[in-house]
């Protein structure tokens, strides 16, 4: 028993290095996708203190809109642009109808409002596009679909999916773009000011409403990218919404307000989950992925309640 827990997994890793690398790669890709969802959460939380549970459904909704438009005869790239437009309208609507009247409410109320938004988008999305899963229009969007295999030695084999590589590249590009946006543009600076202190930002003439609409739109774009990537891996359906919960332990690790935290947290969860499932999951019959991430986050929290990048909290009274 002890052998199975403490030694055997490492022996396996050593014996099949190609497989171990493949596991790491899968963990990496999953981590990137978790990180993308978490990124959407972080953007909104940073600017408005709203813990946006609807991010998961926004991923589905964005993907569904894109595919749904294409199915109705809209060319792929035009559909992409239209979807971006839809996300902008959604962002504006959410800011106008949900966020603005709820300003200054306790966080649990805001959280509930986003779950209400989730219900609404589920109904609306299914109503417009139907409930059947749809295939992502990967090729039409010019995304790669094949895979490359590296054969190592006798039996060694590592398969890299091109779409996964594309996902990683797009994630990196998005993070860099966001970083530039936050640091170099006027709106980005305003956004950071808002994140620091709402009142102070207001007093120097920053429009909170405008900022909120922008972050919801940015989160919508991140959701669209996530929706395309995840849709390409399985397909676009409402069952994806549950996968989006995985972003929550990622947030715990990375902290609710840190963009690098979301990325690192995503990767830790991605790696931890895959390695845990493949090398230790078998001991309890497998399928531990549904909760492993949460337990990792929980244990982590017990030792570091402020998250990876958070500062030590000094309680004041």
């Amino acid at each position, binding site marked *: 028993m002890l052998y199975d827990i403490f030694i055997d997994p490492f022996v396996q890793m050593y014996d099949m290095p190609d497989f171990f690398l493949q596991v790491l790669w899968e963990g990496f890709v999953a981590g990137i996708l978790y990180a993308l969802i978490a990124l959407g959460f972080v953007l909104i939380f940073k600017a408005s203190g709203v*813990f946006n549970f609807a991010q998961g459904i926004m991923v589905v909704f964005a993907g569904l809109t894109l595919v749904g438009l294409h199915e109705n005869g809209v060319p792929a790239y035009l559909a992409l642009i239209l979807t971006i437009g839809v996300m902008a309208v959604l962002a504006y609507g959410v800011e106008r109808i949900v966020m603005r009247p709820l300003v200054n409410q306790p966080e649990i109320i805001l959280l509930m*409002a986003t779950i209400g938004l989730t219900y609404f*988008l589920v109904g609306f999305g299914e*109503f417009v596009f139907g409930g059947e899963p749809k295939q992502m229009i990967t090729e039409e969007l010019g995304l790669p679909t094949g895979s490359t295999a590296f054969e190592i030695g006798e039996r060694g084999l590592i398969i890299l999916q091109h779409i996964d590589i594309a996902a990683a590249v797009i994630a990196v590009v998005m993070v860099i773009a966001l970083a530039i946006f936050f640091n170099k543009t006027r709106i980005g600076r305003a956004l950071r000011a808002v994140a620091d202190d709402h009142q102070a930002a207001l007093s120097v003439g920053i429009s909170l409403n405008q900022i909120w609409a922008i972050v919801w739109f940015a989160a919508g774009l991140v959701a669209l990218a996530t929706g395309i990537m995840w849709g390409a891996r399985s397909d676009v359906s409402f069952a994806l919404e549950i996968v989006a919960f995985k972003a929550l332990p990622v947030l715990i690790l990375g902290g609710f307000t840190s963009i690098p935290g979301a990325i690192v947290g995503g990767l830790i969860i991605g790696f931890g989950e895959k390695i845990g499932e493949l090398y230790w999951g078998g001991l309890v019959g497998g399928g531990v992925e549904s909760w492993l991430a949460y337990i990792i986050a929980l244990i982590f929290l017990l030792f570091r309640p402020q998250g990876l990048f958070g500062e030590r909290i000094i309680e004041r009274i």
Partner: protein
Amino acid sequence: MFYREAGQFKTSYKADQALFPILQDRIGIAAILLIAFVVIPAFANDFFLTSIMIPFLIFALAAIGLNVLTGYCGQLSLGTGAFMGVGAYAAYKLTSIFPDANVIVMVLVSGVFSAAIGAVFGLPSLRIKGLYLAVTTLAAQFFLEWCFIRIPWLYNYNSSGAIEVPRREMFGFIVTGAEALPITRYFVVLCITAGIAYLMANVLRGRIGRSWMMIRDMDIAAELMGVRPLQTKLMAFAVSSYICGVAGAMMVFFWLNAAEPSSYSIRLSFQILFMVILGGLGSLGGAFMGAAFIWILPVLLKFVPGALGIDIAAETVEHATFMIVGALIIFFLIVEPHGFARLWQIAKQKLRVWPFPY
């Protein structure tokens, strides 16, 4: 005008501390009990009992359970569904281990197991607060759900992987199983829910209830007043999980008849949380109002168009239900973030000054 406490003087602290110190409230609660115990059983049909009243009461109880934790003690939990599941599985195991024991006793005892599990998952609450705690309760949710599937002992190695409720009798009435009459099950559920609600009202107006609220309102100050945070929070977790566990056990024993692990999924947790928030955090009456809204509104939307002869495709109704419920949740949060309980107070205020606006 109609609702006035003027002229009702309390001559003892005892009377002042009663649950319903105002005469009109006492009349109101008596009327509600009369409707619940006499009018509904006399006039309602099976559909109304099984699909509306029984689930409503069970959800109201679960909402009371979560309200203890979130509304009174301020600890946000997303693991309610799983704690209800613990109650259900515990009750199932107990009835199969002690087939001759009274099933209602078993249901009430099953809550003890969910209380214990709830307290274990409440341990992190000492160090973790707010949304972070909410996410860690998700660990409980997903882990327990996995256990319900993976520990076949819990479902007596049934090949179906589900728990099924056997027939049990009490005082000559069949209370569980398919043959139990809706009316019998309704009375059992009503008595348990009303009983626990009354007992919780007692706890909440006393020292323990106050210590929960102290932790909720300002945990640091509470600690400086001599409240032990861990003990108090764990007690809230345990009491809350006990109530949720009983509700979960009732859900399978008196309503669904059989349950798979997916019956106690994260969706159930959200459902209950909605009831608590919309009903009003920190209000027992609100738990009932929230449960009524979240459970009954979709049922109405689903069946009323058909009953009126309006022909709409089933899935359209479902989509519309999602949209309407979602929109109404946001609407009510905007209108009154403190929930129906506060709306009810406003309504009472209006009745008090009627016919004058102020």
